[in-house]
């Protein structure tokens, strides 16, 4: 198959886009703005987010609680010291959020005695109250050994930062990625297809020997690359500003350390998703007689994509059947990557279904370009 027609259309679509400063700015500015705004917002929001209500009563579960503990803590704030039965029950209470801190003291702990005494403190930094309770107890213990260290404090953070970041990313990540990609796509596709129809420039290509399929493929490929660039720009803006927005420095939250494989898989899912989105919006735009009409048709699609994006929050342990639904599969598969729960079967099904779906839509677009009702419909 000669590809010259496809390449010519592709180049022209790129030229149409990249030589238009207005279009370029409108696609890439949001990413920059998101970064600046979210970073600024983050600096203000975090202070508020990390505060603990002054009336709050910290609950500390304790094994072998020394007498000075409750007394010492009461001077710092409202504390309730509960005797824990054993180490396991204490950790469970902490994990379930029943207490803010779990402390294990040696039997008959004497802070002045010296020797090899060890105090174990368990807490969860992801929970602000727990982190604060740890700070207080640790401060108290430090004060007790002012001058020379007489015992060891073994602090154990039970939170898994990676899991936490992963969880947050898996909740908002898919929706952000889906919306960013879709936004990029709807900024270009209606203009490229319905716009060309509206301006009467589309049929000029139809009277040349270039195959309809090459026109469809050329347009879809070009729009996909542009949507991908625009989506990547916005996504980068969000990702880079997210640690600031969520108080990364204070809470230890940041971009989780995904592996190369995770990124490769994410990239594959993103590409296949963009192809589905672009093909879908192109087909819808081809029905429209004007960009305005196309934008009207695209509106409900935007709502659907947003819904699919947040559906990952309710799709834990999704059955493989869900991965046969294009775009929903993208959102869930991205969620799996973000939360370190990659399932190779899900990923493969997602890629194949999306590529297959794009191929079907591209075929449909080719047929539409051959339809006089679509091209000349009044």
């Amino acid at each position, binding site marked *: 198959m000669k590809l010259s027609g496809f390449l*010519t259309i592709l180049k022209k679509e790129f030229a149409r886009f990249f030589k*238009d400063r207005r279009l370029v700015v409108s696609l890439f500015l949001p990413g920059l703005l998101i970064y600046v705004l979210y970073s600024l917002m983050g600096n203000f929001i975090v202070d508020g987010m990390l505060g603990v209500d002054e009336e709050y009563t910290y609950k500390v579960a304790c094994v072998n609680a020394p007498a000075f503990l409750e007394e010492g803590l009461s001077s710092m704030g409202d504390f309730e010291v509960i005797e824990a039965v054993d180490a396991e029950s204490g950790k469970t209470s902490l994990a379930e959020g029943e207490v803010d801190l779990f402390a294990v003291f040696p039997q008959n702990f004497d802070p002045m005695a010296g020797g090899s005494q060890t105090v174990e403190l368990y807490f969860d930094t992801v929970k602000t109250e727990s982190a604060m309770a740890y700070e207080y107890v640790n401060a108290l213990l430090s004060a007790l050994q002012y001058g020379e260290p007489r015992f060891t404090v073994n602090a154990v953070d039970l939170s898994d930062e990676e899991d936490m970041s992963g969880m947050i990313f898996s909740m908002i990540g898919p929706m952000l990625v889906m919306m960013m990609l879709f936004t990029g796509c709807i900024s270009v596709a209606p203009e490229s297809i319905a716009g060309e129809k509206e*301006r*009467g420039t589309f*049929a000029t290509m139809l009277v*040349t020997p270039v195959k309809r399929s090459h026109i469809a493929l050329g347009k879809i490929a070009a729009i996909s690359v542009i949507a991908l660039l625009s989506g990547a720009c916005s996504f980068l803006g969000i990702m880079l500003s997210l640690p600031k927005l969520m108080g990364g420095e204070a809470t230890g939250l940041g971009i989780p350390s995904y592996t190369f494989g995770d990124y490769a898989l994410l990239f594959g899912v993103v590409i296949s998703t963009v192809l589905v989105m672009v093909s879908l919006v192109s087909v819808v735009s081809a029905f429209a007689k004007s960009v305005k009409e196309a934008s009207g048709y695209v509106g409900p699609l935007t709502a659907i994509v947003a819904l699919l994006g947040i559906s990952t929050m309710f799709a834990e342990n999704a059955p493989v059947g869900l991965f046969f639904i294009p775009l929903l599969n993208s959102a869930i598969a991205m969620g799996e990557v973000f939360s370190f729960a990659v399932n190779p079967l899900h990923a493969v099904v997602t890629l194949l279904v999306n590529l297959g779906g794009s191929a079907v839509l591209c075929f449909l677009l080719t047929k539409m370009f051959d339809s*006089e009702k679509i091209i*000349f419909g009044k």
Partner: protein
Amino acid sequence: MADTEIAVFAENLKKTFTLSSKQRKLDKTTEKKKVAVNGLSFSAKKGEIYGLLGPNGAGKTTTLRMLATLIKPDGGDALISGHSVRTDAEAVRASIGFLTSELKPDDFFTPSYLFDFFSNLQNIPTHVRDERKKQLFERFGIDEFQETKIADLSTGMKQKVSIAVSLVHDPDVVIFDEPTNGLDVLTAKSVTDFLLELKERGKTVLLSTHIFSLVEKICDRVGIIIDGKMAVEANVKELTKEKSLEDVFFDVYAAAKGGVK
């Protein structure tokens, strides 16, 4: 059709459109179908200018669109340079230049860019393309605006760009729907002069119009279409020996419709 001197041969072309309810209301009709072209046959010889003359709605544009393979005939067929519009659309598109006011050059690009773009779509080698671009741009006076965006050009210059761009592949057959519509007299003259030049170069020009003077001035033969049917097909000079084309047309129209309203 073995005549190698025939460039365009249409036989029994038919095209029916389904009317939307909105269109039926506008047309004040209850008919769901409208026959736009009804068994139209004609032929244009190589090196001649053939005019399809008819009132609005006669089926001229539909016929030209079928010949340009933009729409498919419901019945009949047409051969252009020996290629069927039904079965060999790509070859037809490679041998025609199609121009209509509905097809417009993209405002965003420059004449030079569009010329290159369409040349690439027609698989024209670069050196041929550059030579042809130089010739056509000089011929139409586009050369000084070749790097100006189409949006900034005058209507006449845009039309000239459309003509130049539709001829990137030096087609044997040029199909032109209403070539002088909406043009000022100077641009219109430039276009008609160019059509005569094409004829001199052995090209076949098929045009549709409702302007009698244009047919009388440049066409060798004319086909008068009324209600999608060929009412008369004749040599223009012979047809206008005794009467003006306008008078002939109204006679033909009255005979077909039972009077002129």
